[in-house]
């Protein structure tokens, strides 16, 4: 019974968008704006999170091995390190490796290091990564007590502060996104509700000439979907283009060490899914909820 007139409803809902052109424009653009903010925020927060993870993964304790240690003592040291709580991985880096690293980071000035080729003044190093980089201080203390540890290298207070900030940042970010999603839902449904309230007379007349609630709902239901998806399409387009541009051009040029963005491929599709989902589901819910109160004539 419903499907017989589904085509009619389809056509009707589409026509209605043009009949109430101004309202449609206002709704769609409001939906687009709110989703643009939400989307932009999701992009920002997820990337900040990604960057933070990147920084955290870079946290390592460089354990300088005492020059007096014998080969088997060095090996023993490794297993001791591996047994320290919170240690994820231990990697050996010989003093020649270290020199090479230094050479790389000095770039064009590295020729001054040539003099060390014969007599390398550096230490062999164990590079220790942690399961939970935020507890670096504790791990460092444990490691210091191991034999033949000459010196530890890691970013002390600053790393700690950074972690405090990123932890707060992450909570704030998640809180804001949840808040923004509710706000978006609220704003979109408000806009759609107002446009439908403006059409209350129409709905009342439909009831009076014998249309069932289901019959009346259909075009509004579909209209809600159109408004939502049209409204989502715009920010998806803008965000995708902007993000892609940012990803391929700007970031590379800035060349900031730990500023790495999420690769667009799965990320932008996920984003599109979220936005279309919020847009259309809310569009539908808002229109259905707001016609409900006019369906009792």
């Amino acid at each position: 019974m419903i499907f017989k007139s589904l085509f009619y409803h389809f056509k009707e809902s589409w026509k209605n968008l043009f009949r109430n052109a101004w309202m449609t424009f206002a709704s769609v653009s409001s939906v687009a704006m709110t989703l643009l903010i939400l989307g932009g925020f999701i992009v920002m927060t997820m990337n900040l999170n990604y960057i933070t993870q990147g920084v955290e993964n870079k946290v390592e304790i460089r354990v300088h091995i005492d020059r007096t240690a014998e080969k088997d003592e060095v090996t023993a040291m490794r297993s001791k390190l591996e047994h320290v709580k919170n240690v994820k991985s231990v990697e050996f880096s010989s003093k020649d490796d270290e020199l090479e690293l230094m050479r790389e980071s000095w770039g064009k000035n590295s020729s001054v290091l040539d003099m060390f080729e014969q007599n390398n003044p550096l230490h062999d190093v164990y590079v220790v990564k942690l399961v939970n980089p935020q507890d670096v201080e504790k791990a460092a203390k444990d490691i210091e007590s191991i034999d033949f540890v000459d010196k530890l290298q890691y970013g002390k207070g600053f790393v700690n502060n950074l972690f405090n900030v990123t932890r707060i940042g992450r909570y704030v970010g998640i809180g804001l996104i949840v808040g923004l999603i509710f706000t978006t839902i609220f704003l979109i449904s408000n806009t759609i509700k107002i446009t439908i309230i403006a059409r209350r007379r129409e709905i009342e007349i439909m009831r009076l000439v014998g249309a069932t609630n289901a019959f009346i709902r259909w075009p509004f239901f579909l209209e809600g979907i159109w408004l939502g998806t049209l409204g989502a399409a715009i920010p998806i387009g803008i965000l995708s283009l902007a993000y892609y541009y940012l990803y391929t051009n700007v970031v590379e040029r800035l060349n900031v060490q730990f500023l790495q963005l999420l690769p667009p491929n799965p990320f932008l599709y996920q984003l599109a899914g979220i936005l279309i989902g919020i847009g259309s589901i809310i569009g539908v819910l808002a229109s259905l909820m707001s016609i409900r109160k006019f369906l009792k004539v």
Partner: protein
Amino acid sequence: MIEMIDVYKSYPNGVNALNGINIKIEPGEFVYIVGPSGSGKTTFIKMMYREEKPTSGAVLINGKDVASYKNSKIPLLRRNMGVIFQDYKLLTNLNVYENVAYSLLVTEETRTRMKRRVMDVLELVGLKHKIRMKPQELSGGEQQRVSIARSIVRNPKLVIADEPTGNLDPETSIGILKLFEEINALGTTIVMATHNKDLVNNFRHRVIAIENGEIVRDEVKGEYGYDI
């Protein structure tokens, strides 16, 4: 077909629009409702299609109390009748054809039969040439005729008309009344609230007069009455 038992209606603002109505209208009857402005005719009519519920008393349509209809079943009640509203109640978003066709659409009529039927009734009210116009582009009388066309397009067993000729010239009014008599002859019950003395007096049918929400007169083949 229609029975009202001790019907009272008070609006929320305190107006007592109906004060104890008892009436019985048999299938196939043609009834005029007359009475001064504000006497309760429209309220009486709204009881039948359940736009308003009686404050007390019962309104039976085909033996069933309309107050007992669940909200979701009211449309089914209304599908068995055609209503001409005093203020037309046309859908401003739809054109003339669509306004009339909407009544058939809601009952899931097939498209081809629908089209023929809609064009037929629009021809009857003389608006076949204006099917693409929106209500706002019509004169007052034309809007009223669209509303008349919509009420009869479903071939209802009951037509309820609230002042259907208020904006029509006498000639067109008589045409509409003859149309009503034709469908009445085919078995449709007609209930028509009107101020049109000439129509009531020239096309004699049962007359129910309402004053201050009470029935003051009920005559078979009556007259308009209020002579001045």
